[in-house]
């Protein structure tokens, strides 16, 4: 059996996550329309009421808890549309998800990125 769960810090967007996150990601997708972005920005809580989000999905959006969104079934290409609405880049949310600041993360990338060594599997990581 393939065991994607053995890969550290990785949340494969598989059938279970799609099933859990469908409505959440469709909310994110709605932000590709300017009018919807305006509505969301004007009243986040009200806008979210239009979508069948779980409590943890909803809270993760309001808190801009980017890792929380992923853990609650968000897909990065969809949650990034919230970041775009906020005026943030993929790099900004990647930094926050991996528990660092944008500056430190940027420096890590310029220095060659996060090493694969020690990051292949949980067992290897020990």
């Amino acid at each position, binding site marked *: 059996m393939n065991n994607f769960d053995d890969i550290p810090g990785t949340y494969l967007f598989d059938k279970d996550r799609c099933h859990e996150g469908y409505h959440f*990601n469709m909310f994110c997708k709605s932000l590709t*329309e300017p009018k919807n972005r305006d509505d969301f920005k004007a009243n986040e809580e009200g806008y979210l009421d239009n979508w069948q989000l779980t409590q943890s999905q909803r809270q993760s959006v309001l808190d801009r808890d980017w890792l929380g969104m*992923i853990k609650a079934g968000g*897909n990065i290409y969809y949650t*990034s549309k919230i970041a775009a609405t906020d005026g943030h880049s993929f790099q900004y949310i990647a930094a926050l998800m991996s528990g660092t600041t944008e500056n430190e993360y940027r420096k890590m990338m310029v220095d060659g*990125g996060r090493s*694969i060594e020690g990051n292949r599997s949980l067992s290897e990581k020990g």
Partner: protein
Amino acid sequence: MARIVAGLATSHVPAIGIAMDQGKTGEPYWKPLFDGYDPARKWLAKLDPDLIVLVYNDHGSAFSLEVIPTFAIGVAEKFLPADEGWGPRPVPVVNGDPKFAWHLAESLILDEFDMTIVNDMTVDHGLTVPLSIVCGQPEKWPCPVIPLSVNVVQYPPPTGKRCFDLGRAIRKAVKRYDDDLRVLILGTGGMSHQLHGERAGLINSEFDKSFLDDLSRQPQRLVDLPHIEYVREAGAEGIELVMWLVMRGALDDDVTEIYQHYHVPASNTATGLLILENLTE
């Protein structure tokens, strides 16, 4: 008779498009990357293909989780750049070629590829950034483009073997086309990158460089590579690399490697570019 004369693979990082759209390509962060694109642009201008088949993935722009096609082909007259949350990219409209695209769709379905045919769709950075990379910033794109989108967002994407075989079937379809077109095939996405989770920022240059080398010379190793190896070694979003196999499958077994370029980083990503030509051209 139409024929595929060459293949090009490249990353399609959104930040590369943004750097071009915002005129930042000369900045120290970006210059080494864009310098590496110059030879590819010169090569493409000289090749002057009649048509591009562009294999890419949509990132929740034209499609969503409502309907997730494994392979989709755009048969429209034109494709507008998508709004991905920050407005559409200021790049030319992409002109299709309905006659060729429908021929391709028909041929692939009769060859047992279960294509989704799309009459109306936008195209996101997955398609427009590669065009910007190889064409720069022209008033209009140099030739018609057939969008061929592959699902790599929802697990499972098609297997590497299926992607390679799709390339083979594309080659057959091109050969069956009556008009005398010189076709370029682009495979896009990758290289190693992970955009989400605590492991975001993962770069595996060793994996990437082997991938670049083996794609020209011994693609079979990559055809057999299981999904989990991409995710583990090249990052969760590095699985986009399966799309490069469609390009490779569309070329002959023996090819000439024309150019290779590799740079880290572009935003969260390792970028690669590879140009292969069929020997017969």
